[in-house]
């Protein structure tokens, strides 16, 4: 049997040094990348700078529109001396806890539900329409009901977050199982897979790509659920900060809370990307998002 790793001529030919043209092309490529990075930062500077300037010159009233320097000052004040409603880290911790709880519960339920309905035609036929109906309910209104049912504490926020994340993960898991290449399933069956092995050794890994790509969106929605829940009625959390800042016409405070949430969301997204690489090492790297 021949060895495909062996090439007929072997790899004896030495690597020639780069020519002038190749070197200058590389340098051009470098310059171009630097320019792109510069422009990228420039866009940010122009927008934020323009905002600051129009606030200072009175073009945009900072009372209504806020002011970048004021936002930074607010974040700084909150993080060093605490917010009027207590230390900042406490609010961040509460919102994060609600988000993470809602995320895990929602993902778990979504994966189990989507997988079960994807695997069983009968379950899908019986429950499918109800799940679609549930997904059509405007979730923000559910938030009000959860506050009535579960009170101002953490439970109502988690419940709202779960209703948001569940459906995203559910539909992705369901689709993932449904779209498994029938050839793979047939191959596994011929190789002797039991129904259980078929589920966990073939269907689940095949659907994993779909499920994981839904995690990016669903973490964002868990955060939205927590914040909106807090906004509707709470005694702590970032959404509560927004609500009180809004009540006091503190525009900079609203923006400051928004910036903090964005940072939290970005960190979470990065960790999901990391998880994605860990869980699906077989996928080509180019599929991973690069910006």
């Amino acid at each position, binding site marked *: *049997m*021949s060895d*495909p*790793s062996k090439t007929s001529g072997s790899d004896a030919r030495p690597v020639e040094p780069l020519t002038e043209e190749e070197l200058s092309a590389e340098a051009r490529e470098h310059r171009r990348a630097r320019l792109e990075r510069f422009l990228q930062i420039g866009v940010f500077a122009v927008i934020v700078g323009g905002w600051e300037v129009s606030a200072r010159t009175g073009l945009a009233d900072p009372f209504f529109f806020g002011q970048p320097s004021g936002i930074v000052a607010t974040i700084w004040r909150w993080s060093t001396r605490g917010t009027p409603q207590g230390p900042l880290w406490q609010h961040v911790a509460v919102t994060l806890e609600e988000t993470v709880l809602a995320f895990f519960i929602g993902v778990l339920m979504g994966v189990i539900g989507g997988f079960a309905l994807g695997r069983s035609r009968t379950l899908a036929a019986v429950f499918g329409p109800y799940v679609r109906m549930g997904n059509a309910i405007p979730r923000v209104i559910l938030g009000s009901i959860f506050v009535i049912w579960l009170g101002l504490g953490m439970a109502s926020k988690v419940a709202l977050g779960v209703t948001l994340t569940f459906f995203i993960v559910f539909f992705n898991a369901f689709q993932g199982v449904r779209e498994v290449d029938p050839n793979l399933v047939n191959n596994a069956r*011929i190789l*002797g897979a039991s129904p259980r092995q078929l589920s966990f050794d073939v269907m689940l890994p095949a659907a994993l790509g779909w499920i994981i790509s839904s995690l990016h969106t669903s973490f964002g929605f868990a955060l939205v659920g927590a914040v909106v829940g807090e906004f509707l009625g709470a005694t702590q959390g970032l959404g509560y900060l927004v609500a009180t800042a809004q009540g006091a016409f503190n525009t900079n405070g609203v923006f400051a809370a928004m910036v903090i949430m964005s940072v939290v969301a970005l960190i979470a997204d990065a960790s999901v990307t990391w998880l994605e690489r860990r869980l699906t090492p*077989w996928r080509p790297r180019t599929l991973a998002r690069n910006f």
Partner: protein
Amino acid sequence: MSLDRDKPAIALRDVTKRFRTPGGGLYVAVHSLTFEVARGEFCAIVGPTGSGKSTTLNLIAGLETPSRGQVSVLGETVTTLTRGVGYMFQTDAVFPWKNVLENVATGPIYRGVSRQEAHRGARDWVGRVGLAGFEDRYPNQLSGGMRKRVALAQTLINEPAILLMDEPFASLDVQTRTLMENELLELWSGTSASVVFVTHDLEEAIALADRVLVFTASPATLKQSYQIDLSRPRNVTEVRFDPRFTRLYERIWEDLRDEAIIAYERSIKDIRL
């Protein structure tokens, strides 16, 4: 198995398979098909596209059940998935989330062999198909030819008594394909497996097989069976220059061409409608 030594490896008797089409009509994929494959025989099936060749393999494997007639494998009537069958699919069916070694070890693990032992056996097979050193690569890091080798090892490690192959090398370039055909013959000669090899390439069929079955345009039924009296061991590249090869080719091509023309005219009529 030894009890039914005289029974053929595969026997189809008057088998018909019909499908309901999405439009509500009936599609007859296979119509009253009867043929046998002897133990250890390498049998190739050629026929025009859409002539139910894949359906025939699925019926033998037990992935489909016949609408009428009987399929038996190793003397037993096929009702569910047939044991002792290996199946190489036309498209890639290796598991993208398993590396080469795990892919090859899949069958034994499913059949209850311990992971350690399965990996030992898989390592041996990975070497036999010429992929030593690539054990920890994932399929998307391999070339098309290498993925076929993985699929071949994955199938053969289960030591199937029946090997079904559905245009396994159709997606490969001509050189790689010839290499794979020779390797298949070499690996097969070390086993006692019966092979049913579906292809649309008549040259490939004659070069590999002991017998070539020509299927009619759909609904598929057996048109003619040709014994290939070329000696073994064969080299698929050299055997093509054998004058007997050319004579066989001409004779079988007559049959095949007629069916291909029927299938082609029918497909044109379908588009016009």
